[in-house]
């Protein structure tokens, strides 16, 4: 037996297919196809949660995505825990562990329920008004306390072990929703040959056919027709049917996000399958067939477990075979609830009474109720309910007052009418329009190429829905360039046409009352809270929403919106359309972060770039650092060495013998063409006309505002060909910068730019023995100082491989940079190592490279400059061509502020205590004893221990720095103040003789 409230013969589940699950540790029986909600109800469990603010006992209100109360935690294991799952949409699987939320110590006895007694103190806006002072208390007392008490559910603490996938899809027609309307539209569209995707959030298509058993289409039972139609569509090659897939967001140009739940319903999912799949669909046309959501009635204590939407009770009975109670009351302002009573009555459930707020219900349902012997109280209201953890009675009174009659019940069904689901339409930026006659917001002005059909378009009648949907399917296909060969027709029939509906507070919950008549169950917002918000001056519906939290969180206006709006309008004395509707936001229902992130996590979060020699460096024991997307060898520790020891050894070795460095990450751009030199003249501050082929020059590039943008060595390979290098991090933006000017400002220049960063492996060989190391390997290049001076480039061969060999140095030592085609990098690296190591040379990493260049006062753009540094500030004024008529930044450089005195300039710093290494980023002051806050005159940009100098060295940007050379400044740190002397930027080999070997 799968629950005492299961009615034999009712519903569409198979009695033989059972499953067991646990709710708060207790085992329950279920049937395959049950949702957690239907299975709990089958076992007579209505109490499933506690409300957010007052901790009131709450039960299952709906049978779908609009569920505000039944939020549960689902646990598969320690890592796979999902909080805030709506019990009405989660399938039961065998062995499933479900836990209730927002209660302590237990669901039936919750300490937090004291909030309900203290409710008068927790009026709307309570937080805003109460926790105002003392100011400090917010940070240290109020916020931590509120945060601890707030929130529903608990996040898992371990990394998610599931994986998620992502797909892009294109189609001619996307149909959102697979009820009668969606299926009809998809059918008509598919027949034209258009590519169709149809999705529905439920496991099975059918929408309202889940509960409305009276529907037949072409003489067939409605739900059966829906399944057959979906199967037919799925067999068509041009159609994709996606059940368990929610369209959660509608973005620009018919770009719609779908969330497909692939394994959520499986007991033991194949771990190869993604848990969820994100579909990013670009549709030529979209048909919105999202149906309507039934509203609850707003009356005193309308939130007890056992009180639910009439259509939900009908779904539980007709689809899941579950009776939600034994003696059921109905409170309605709309005909549809009658049909729930009829279905339950026919299934053997006692209907205590139908209470109808209207004097005149629909003729058809009234007659049927009478013939079934159901008591109907028209012009009456439910003015209160009884029961602690489940409803036990309703108090019914004639509209306008009079004695209340208490009727014992164990469930109460309600319906205030139907709210068209305009969420998708509204998200598409369509403007809704208020329909006075039916008191509904309906799609008005469309902003995108979409159409709404069926209940979400305000179409009530079944046959009208079918015809409208078939027409829309065909129309949208035509618009995408497809035509139908035959007209489709379907004949639908159902039992009753529905009339009625109301918005706002019902009998006994009006403006003069203080009862708890909830409009938003999830956020604990009552009718009186809306009125309070208006009284306190919130006149815009957007303000009212934020003040009361009405319609926030997962609700997004599904249940609460219209009631809240109606009450606000009434209190403001304005008409509903004048008050306006809050904006519907994506996502329609919550989407897991896993789905949105899908593959982009861990190693796949961002591309990793590795140099051709990476594996060799790794094998050698290099420690790597991240430089943008690059992995760069940071240092090469030997046995027993820490980072400092390794770096000190590498630094010393390079200057004493030689070192080998992987410089492949340097940006490289090939600039070619008859106007190449002219182009570089405009891009760099330097002059390039005078550079002869075979020679190199250090170039500086500015932005138009005059600040240093990038730097690097440029070699002239031929009259019309330059080998440009950029900083590692600047490669892409420099390329963009050059392309921008070439394409848009200097299009008259005949120049081609090609990124060559990854085409060349670059091996720097630096140090006194550099020439000795490469000489045996190089062919066709005279390496002597005379034939191949510093800042030259030659083409030749190394180990038989073509090379562009640069004579250049970023260490101040005799140096070469061997460029070879990337694939030969590892072989040449090994060949050079084999020559170098017997001589006592070593490989070195980026840390040593940084120290060595700082010893020579060579700047790193982006470390020693920050986008506010001019060439002059960095003592690089010599690189700016004084006679040039134009270059990018020429005018910016002359701005008054850029030539003013007192600019921050790059200088060296020597700590008075040579063993103290400054911290990069530390602030510099002139007088350490001045009052706080001190006047800061600069900051440290680079600081290292220099083994070669036998002391610490640093570079810093200091206001008027060059004039302060020789002066003492101070670097205040949390524990001490460090005295420093300002110096020039060259700490080692000031004469610069070593560069010539």
């Amino acid at each position: 037996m799968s629950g005492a409230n299961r009615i034999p013969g009712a519903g569409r589940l198979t009695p033989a297919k059972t499953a067991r699950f646990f709710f708060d540790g207790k085992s329950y029986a279920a049937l395959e196809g049950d949702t957690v909600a239907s299975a709990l109800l089958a076992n007579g469990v209505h109490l499933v949660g506690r409300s957010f603010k007052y901790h009131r006992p709450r039960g299952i209100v709906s049978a779908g995505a609009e569920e505000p109360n039944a939020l549960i935690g689902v646990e598969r294991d320690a890592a796979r825990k999902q909080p805030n799952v709506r019990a009405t949409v989660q399938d039961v699987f065998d062995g499933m562990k479900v836990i209730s939320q927002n209660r302590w110590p237990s669901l039936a006895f919750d300490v937090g329920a004291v909030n309900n007694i203290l409710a008068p103190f927790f009026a709307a806006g309570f937080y805003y008004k109460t926790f105002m002072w003392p100011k400090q208390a917010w940070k240290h007392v109020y916020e931590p306390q509120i945060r601890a008490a707030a929130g529903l559910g608990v996040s898992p603490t371990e990394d998610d072990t599931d994986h998620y996938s992502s797909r892009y899809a294109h189609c001619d027609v996307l149909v959102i929703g697979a009820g009668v309307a969606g299926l009809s539209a998809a059918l008509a569209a598919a027949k034209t040959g258009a590519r169709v995707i149809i999705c529905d959030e439920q496991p099975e298509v059918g929408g309202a056919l889940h509960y409305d058993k009276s529907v037949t289409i072409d003489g067939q039972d409605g739900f059966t027709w829906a399944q057959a139609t979906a199967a037919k569509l799925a067999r068509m090659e041009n159609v994709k049917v996606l059940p368990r897939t929610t369209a959660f967001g509608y973005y620009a140009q018919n770009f719609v996000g779908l969330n497909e739940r692939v394994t959520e319903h499986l007991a033991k999912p194949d771990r190869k399958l993604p848990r969820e799949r994100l579909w990013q669909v670009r549709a030529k046309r979209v048909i919105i067939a999202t149906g309507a959501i039934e509203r609850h009635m707003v009356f005193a204590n309308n939130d007890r477990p056992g009180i639910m939407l009439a259509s939900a009770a009908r779904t539980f009975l007709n689809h899941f075979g579950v009776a939600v109670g034994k003696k059921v009351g109905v409170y309605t302002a709309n005909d549809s609830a009658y049909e729930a009573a009829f279905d339950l009555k026919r299934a053997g459930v006692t209907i205590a009474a139908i209470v109808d707020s209207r004097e005149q219900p629909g003729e058809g349902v009234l007659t049927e109720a009478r013939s079934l012997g159901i008591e109907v109280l028209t012009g009456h209201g439910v003015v209160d309910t009884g029961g602690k953890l489940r409803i036990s009675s309703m108090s019914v009174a004639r509209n306008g007052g009079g004695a209340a009659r208490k009727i014992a019940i164990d469930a109460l069904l309600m319906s205030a009418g139907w709210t068209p689901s305009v969420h998708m339409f509204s998200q598409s930026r369509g403007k809704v329009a208020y329909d006075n006659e039916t008191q509904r917001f309906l799609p008005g002005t469309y902003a995108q190429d979409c159409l709404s059909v069926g209940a979400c378009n305000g179409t009530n009648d079944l046959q009208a829905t079918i015809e409208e949907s078939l027409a829309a399917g065909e129309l949208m296909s035509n618009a995408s360039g497809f035509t139908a060969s035959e007209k489709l027709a379907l004949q639908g029939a159902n039992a009753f046409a529905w009339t009625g509906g109301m918005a706002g507070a019902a009998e006994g919950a009006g403006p003069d009352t203080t009862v708890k008549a909830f409009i938003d169950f999830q956020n604990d917002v009552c009718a009186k809270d809306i009125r309070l918000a208006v009284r306190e001056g919130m006149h815009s519906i957007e303000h009212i929403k934020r003040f009361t939290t009405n319609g926030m969180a997962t609700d997004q206006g599904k249940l609460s919106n219209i009631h809240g709006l109606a009450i606000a309008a009434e209190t403001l004395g304005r008409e509903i359309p004048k008050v306006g509707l809050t904006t519907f936001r994506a996502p329609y229902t919550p989407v897991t972060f896993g789905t949105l992130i899908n593959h982009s996590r861990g190693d796949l979060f961002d591309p990793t770039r590795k140099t051709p020699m990476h594996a060799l460096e790794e094998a050698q024991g290099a420690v790597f650092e991240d430089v943008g997307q690059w992995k760069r060898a940071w240092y090469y520790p030997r046995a027993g060495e820490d980072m400092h020891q390794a770096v000190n050894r590498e630094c010393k070795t390079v200057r004493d013998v030689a070192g080998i460095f992987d410089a492949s990450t340097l940006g490289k751009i090939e600039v070619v063409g008859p106007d190449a030199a002219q182009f570089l003249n405009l891009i760099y501050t330097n002059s390039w006309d005078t550079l002869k082929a075979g020679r190199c020059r250090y170039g500086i590039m500015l932005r138009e505002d005059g600040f240093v943008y990038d730097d690097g060595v440029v070699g002239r390979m031929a009259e019309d060909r330059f080998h440009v290098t950029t900083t590692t991090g600047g490669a892409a933006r420099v390329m963009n910068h050059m392309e921008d000017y070439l394409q848009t400002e200097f299009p008259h220049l005949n120049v081609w730019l090609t990124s060559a960063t990854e085409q060349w492996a670059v091996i720097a060989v630096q140090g006194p023995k550099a020439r000795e190391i490469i000489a045996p390997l190089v062919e066709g290049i005279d390496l002597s100082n005379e034939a191949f001076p510093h800042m030259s480039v030659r083409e030749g061969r190394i180990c038989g491989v073509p090379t562009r060999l640069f004579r250049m140095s970023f260490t101040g030592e005799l140096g070469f940079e061997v460029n070879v085609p990337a694939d030969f990098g590892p072989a040449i690296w090994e060949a050079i190592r084999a020559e170098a190591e017997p001589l006592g040379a070593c490989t070195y990493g980026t840390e040593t490279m940084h120290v060595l260049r700082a010893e020579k006062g060579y700047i790193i753009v982006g470390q020693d400059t920050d986008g506010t540094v001019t060439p002059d500030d960095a003592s690089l004024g010599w690189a700016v061509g004084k006679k040039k008529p134009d270059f990018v930044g020429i005018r910016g450089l002359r701005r008054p502020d850029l030539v003013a005195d007192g600019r921050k300039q790059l200088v060296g710093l020597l700590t008075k205590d040579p063993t103290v290494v400054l911290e990069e980023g530390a602030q510099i002051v002139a007088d350490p004893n001045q009052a706080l806050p001190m006047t800061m005159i600069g900051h440290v940009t680079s600081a290292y221990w220099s083994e070669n100098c036998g002391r610490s060295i640093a570079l810093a940007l200091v206001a008027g720095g060059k004039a302060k050379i020789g002066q003492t400044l101070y670097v205040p740190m949390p524990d001490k103040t460090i005295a420093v002397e300002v110096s020039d930027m060259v700490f080692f080999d000031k004469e610069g003789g070593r560069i010539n070997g």
Partner: protein
Amino acid sequence: MLLIYCPYCEEERSELEFRQAGDAHIARPTNMTEMTDEEFEAFFFLRDNVKGLTFERWRHLNGCGRFFNAARDTVSDKFLTTYKAGLPKPDLSTLRPATEATVETYEATESDAK
């Protein structure tokens, strides 16, 4: 995510392939060194940041790599048209909408269908 028509590739591609590149039709003066501070300020720093129709530069970065110009409405976020760099501002009154006419109301299309 928008679809943007690249005037060089002559097709609509996903926004992911493009990068915005600031206001369009601001030519770099040829007499840079003769500009007054005020003129340089106007050229380099001052932008209108309009609400509504704006002309801006885009680059088909992860595509053909070309810079081009676009007329875009900053309120609706819609591209009215795109055109090659160097061409003058198009006359928007004569412009065909960048995409086919948007369906205005259900009623309008319903009557079409019938």
